[in-house]
């Protein structure tokens, strides 16, 4: 009898123990397990918002979104994997080996579509869709993707997208960014990231243990990013890009009255799409590491500075006229060389230009004239005047990566080299050589100051964001004397339009072009060629700078390119 009691007691104890433990996990820990079970079944699928488009001044999209067609496979639906890889290879032209790799990957996620070949043509997509009936498992999936219809054209302005970096992620995460998001890395894509990026949506779905979608519980629609309208004219941009061909350098066209940037070409450039498509990784590596490509990511228009050469003579001429050191009629003699200290400084024309006035000196780009002028004006006044033309500081263009260039001063030389400023330094400075460094954008802006009679414009690229006109226009009146500028302008007209002017090659029968050539010596190799000018003469509507890295004499190539660019802008009705 005793044993039966023990027996019954033990049984009750066992049952109660299990029952109590069940109470513990269901009642006390119940909420934790409920969370775990919810986590099991609920999956949040982020819905990416389409990125805002970037348009040119005529609403032509330069960066937009298009649907990408991918040849994909759902492994669990596939019957004969080999057959599928044959078909896909045949249709898309992709290597069978590559497809096989993707199929192996798909085996581990049998119920979700896995991309075999990315970004196939529409025709290929249609063809593959037809195979879907006979060969289940094949399907064409679509995804929105950034697209750059003009490829390389304007790439240095548009910039490119890339995977969000760790530092960007910590900075942006409060705005709803996630790991693996694409963000603007350079150009407008970077500068206007916060507008272009829309607001992500999301979809909460219920899945089974294999991750198959059972039903949609909630959807938050994504909000697309804002469209950005720029000042660019993509037709002119394209034309200028083609003009440059394989040359390195930059062409910038600016509206001298407003500061609107009509074109900003920097060569070499790159196709921004290579940063998005993993299939183009080879092109990407080429762009990043191949020295022959000469750093295509660099925007030579704003991120590199060079000696301006003779174009700078405009600044010195203005300074001299303003300070009354010289007037329109005053004459200097050029014998081909000029002695400064114990050294002879040569003119580019060995026989010399004889007696020249300031307008002629500009026309001939006479060095000797400007050596003498510079020494009279003095380094301090030249530096001051250069600053008033906007050199040595950023123009404030709405693009990332702009550099300020450099205007030397007496003080600077003492601080840096512990040397005094020699007259020879002034002579070099006078013809835009030596320590002076400018960006092509600064040089075109200088031309704008001359063209618009003394207004320093802020170059800008973005006109409006969606419907919101943004007030990028900023024009500051400089106190540069319009009379002085008028004389310089007259000289610039002669450069192009008079017989024996250095910029003769820029002469056009369509429109009166004025401007200044420049041939900048540099220690790295051949001379850089410059031409900076404006047109039409009476009512300037466009300023152009052409910079050809190691391009030789500015009077040749650079002038021709500038003329063609201006003629094209006339043809397009811009001026």
């Amino acid at each position, binding site marked *: *009898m005793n*044993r*039966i009691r023990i*027996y*019954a007691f033990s*049984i*009750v104890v*066992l*049952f109660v123990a*299990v*029952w109590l*433990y*069940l*109470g513990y*996990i*269901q*009642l006390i*820990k*119940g*909420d*934790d*397990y*409920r969370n*775990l*079970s*919810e986590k*099991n*079944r609920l999956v949040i699928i982020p819905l990416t918002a389409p990125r805002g488009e970037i348009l040119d001044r005529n609403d032509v999209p330069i960066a937009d979104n298009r649907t990408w067609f991918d040849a994909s496979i759902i492994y669990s639906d596939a019957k004969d994997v080999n057959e599928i890889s044959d078909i896909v290879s045949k249709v898309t032209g992709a290597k069978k080996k590559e497809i096989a790799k993707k199929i192996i990957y798909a085996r581990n996620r049998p119920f979700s579509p896995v991309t075999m070949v990315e970004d196939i043509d529409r025709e290929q997509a249609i063809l593959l869709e037809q195979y879907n009936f006979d060969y289940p498992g094949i399907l064409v999936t679509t995804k929105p993707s950034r697209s750059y219809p003009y490829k390389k054209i304007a790439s240095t302005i548009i910039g490119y997208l890339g995977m969000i970096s760790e530092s960007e992620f910590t900075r942006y995460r409060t705005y709803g960014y996630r790991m693996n998001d694409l963000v603007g890395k350079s150009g407008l894509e970077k500068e206007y990231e916060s507008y272009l990026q829309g607001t992500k949506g999301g979809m909460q779905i*219920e*899945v*089974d*243990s*294999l991750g198959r979608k*059972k039903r949609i519980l909630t959807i938050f629609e994504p909000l697309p990013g804002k469209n950005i309208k720029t000042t660019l004219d993509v037709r002119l941009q394209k034309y200028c890009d083609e003009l440059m061909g394989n040359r390195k350098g930059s062409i910038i066209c600016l509206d001298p009255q407003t500061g609107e940037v009509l074109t900003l070409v920097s060569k070499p450039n790159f196709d921004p799409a290579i940063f998005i498509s993993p299939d183009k990784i080879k092109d990407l590596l080429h762009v990043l590491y191949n020295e022959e490509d000469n750093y295509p990511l660099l925007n030579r228009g704003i991120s590199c500075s060079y000696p301006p050469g003779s174009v700078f003579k405009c600044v010195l001429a203005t300074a001299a006229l303003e300070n009354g050191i010289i007037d329109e009629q005053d004459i200097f003699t050029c014998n081909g060389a000029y002695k400064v200290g114990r050294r002879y400084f040569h003119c580019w024309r060995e026989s010399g230009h004889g007696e020249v006035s300031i307008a002629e000196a500009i026309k001939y780009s006479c060095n000797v004239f400007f050596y003498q002028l510079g020494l009279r004006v003095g380094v301090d006044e030249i530096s001051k005047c250069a600053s008033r033309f906007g050199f040595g500081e950023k123009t404030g263009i709405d693009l990332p990566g702009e550099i300020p260039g450099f205007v030397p001063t007496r003080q600077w030389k003492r601080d840096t080299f512990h040397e005094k400023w020699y007259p020879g330094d002034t002579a070099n400075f006078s013809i835009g050589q030596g320590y002076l460094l400018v960006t092509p954008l600064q040089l075109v802006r200088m031309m704008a100051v001359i063209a618009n009679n003394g207004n320093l414009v802020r170059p800008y690229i973005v006109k409006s964001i969606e419907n919101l006109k943004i007030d990028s226009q900023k024009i500051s009146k400089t106190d540069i004397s319009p009379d002085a500028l008028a004389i310089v302008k007259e000289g610039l007209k002669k450069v192009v339009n008079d017989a024996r002017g250095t910029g003769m090659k820029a002469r056009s029968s369509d429109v009166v072009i004025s401007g200044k050539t420049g041939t900048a010596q540099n220690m790295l190799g051949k001379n850089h060629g410059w031409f900076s000018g404006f047109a039409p003469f009476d009512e300037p509507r466009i300023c152009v700078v052409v910079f050809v890295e190691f391009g030789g004499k500015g009077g040749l190539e650079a002038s021709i390119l500038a003329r063609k660019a201006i003629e094209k802008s006339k043809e397009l009705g811009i001026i």
Partner: protein
Amino acid sequence: MIGLKNQAEMRHLDLVILLCLVLVNLAGLIFLYSASSSLDEAKFQAIMSKQSMLMFIGFVLIFIILLIDYQRFIDSAYFLYVINLFLLVLVFFAGSKRLGAQRWLSLFGFTFQPSEFMKITLVLMLASYFGARKEHSKSTFLMIKGILLVLPAFLLVAVQPDLGTALMLLPILLGVLFIFGTDIKALLATAFLGILSTPIFWYLLKDYQRKRLLVFLNPNLDPLGAGYTITQSKIAVGSGGLFGKGWLSGTQNQLNFLPERHTDFVFSVVGEEWGFIGISVVLLLYLIIILRGVMIISQTRDIYGKLIAAGVVCWFTFQIIINVGMTIGILPVVGLTLPFISYGGSSLLVSMIAIGLLLNVGMRRPLF
């Protein structure tokens, strides 16, 4: 041989057990419906129709068993034991393999597991053996002889491999010996020796069984492989809370996160969909059946009847506790069904027969 001696015997039929049994079976069908509803349609219908048909057959079997005096079963116990051993051997040659184990045998168009039937045969055999030697109840030698008698059955089942069923043979032995009156010290010593010898069994275990044991000790060892079942089952039960998520609404169950949910892990479905209240009711029904079984042990004077009841009661207790314990991760996963609720023909019929025997003993206890 067949027929009731008098109407009085029928009057002693334990109606409480019978009522609880009907309730557990009906609840089982409801649970099974939910557990298998997310399988494909054909499979779902096959499971439901087969299980309900076998339930009906089970109750018919109980009725037939009640008509036969349990002493008749004791008489043929050795014969049944030998036959069952023979069937176990036959499984090796003619059995069909499923899930890596050779457990099923097809005879006359019926597929069944001889190992399941060994439980009932063993109860009868042990009752018969020890019942005939009740004057030597304290003899350690007798106990050892009894253990040796069980050994062939244990080994044959264990090597199939069917660890769960093999282990279930031990509580039957334990229950019979305990009520028989075996010296407690000797029993404890034997149990101790048995535990000491487990390293030997480690070598006999199949890889997957070793893995299961290791994973039981630490489910995080392999959360997506062998530990997956334990983790998901625990989540299912725990997430049920007090009231459960409702019939057919268990997300763990319906969305297929629970493997083997209509067989060994059906209890997780009960826990998830019916909550603490549901599982309390189910456990209470089981406990009532078992405690009424203990009453039958105490009220039966006949040693044979006592031992049959003792074996059945101990077996059910352990099978239920171990099954529930493994679904909530406090005991290793050994592959045991939850009686009357888990899907499985052999298990269901054998459980029904066992209850039939228990009722038989209770009904025929000599009146005093």
